């Protein structure tokens, strides 16, 4: 490596070129996958940056109903993972606008279901502290591969 000031300039140049739609798309997709996977595993996150917690158990009556009408989606009659058909979790998406990234459910019907779940104390769209760290690690890995080339 050469002069430290040259390295700083190279870093600035690299990072400026890096903050583009392609990177934001990758981060968006990665983050959506994280939330979907964690919810399918049966965990929610009440506050952004907080700890994940097991989703509230299903009521006895609903479990009984699901036993008679098994979920067609990736769940089981007793599993609390906000999944019956799986449509709501599949509707989690992202939106990139200039340099901001929004993760959410943009389909009105599925958003209504998500909102109902939130009212029932089953919040799942937030990112836990560990998930934010996973997003950091993901971006860091992409950057490290580029920095190694400097």
């Amino acid at each position, binding site marked *: *490596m050469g002069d*430290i000031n040259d*390295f*700083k300039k190279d*870093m*600035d140049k690299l*990072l400026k070129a*890096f*903050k583009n739609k392609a990177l*934001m798309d990758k*981060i968006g997709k990665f*983050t959506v*996958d*994280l939330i979907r*996977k*964690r919810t*399918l*595993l*049966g*965990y929610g996150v009440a506050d*952004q940056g907080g*700890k*994940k917690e097991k989703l509230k158990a299903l009521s006895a009556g609903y479990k009984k109903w699901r036993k008679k009408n098994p979920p067609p989606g*990736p*769940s*089981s009659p007793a*599993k609390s*993972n906000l999944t019956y058909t799986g449509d709501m979790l599949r509707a989690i998406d992202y939106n990139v606008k200039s*340099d*901001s*990234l*929004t*993760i*959410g*459910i*943009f389909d*009105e019907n599925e*958003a*209504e279901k*998500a*909102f109902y779940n*939130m009212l029932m104390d089953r919040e799942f*769209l*937030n*990112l*836990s502290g*560990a*998930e*934010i*760290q*996973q*997003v*950091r*690690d993901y*971006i*860091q890995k992409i*950057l*490290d591969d580029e*920095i190694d080339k400097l």
Partner: protein
Amino acid sequence: MAKLVNIQHIFECPTDFTPDQRVMLADLIIKKIKERCSDGLKATGGSFPHYSPEYKASLDFKNAGKSGDVNLRLSGDMLAEMRLVRHSVGKIVIGYDKGDVEADKVEGNQIGSYGKPIGDPNKARPFLGLPQGILDALISKVKKELPELSVAKDKTDSFINSILKNTSTKFGK
């Protein structure tokens, strides 16, 4: 709850390392451990034992989209929570605290207990640690490249923070 064991690992480093050098070394150690887990390698070398057929057939395994590759990532949170616990002259401690959400899983993997009272070395997947040769290479990197590593870390941290600051979640249009 059983007393958690083996959720931290002590790495020795040169006694003349400054706190900045130790923090940078810790950063590199954590990255290397995660990288080795992705490759299915134990802390001291050799591959992790395969997943059991029961685990592979479970709903969680499928819902996490896992393949047969053993990389200690179901949700990914366990490795994400690994951090520098403390450091002092000649010593760096990497791992977890007892109260961490993933601490039980860490112990399960480290000693092969997986929720049982006694561990089984044949089922264990110890990941906290590095072969000495790799640790030596990281120490030498910190000795030679601390200014560049610090610049890269500061700049990438602020880059990532700026992205996370502008990331939000919402319902509806």
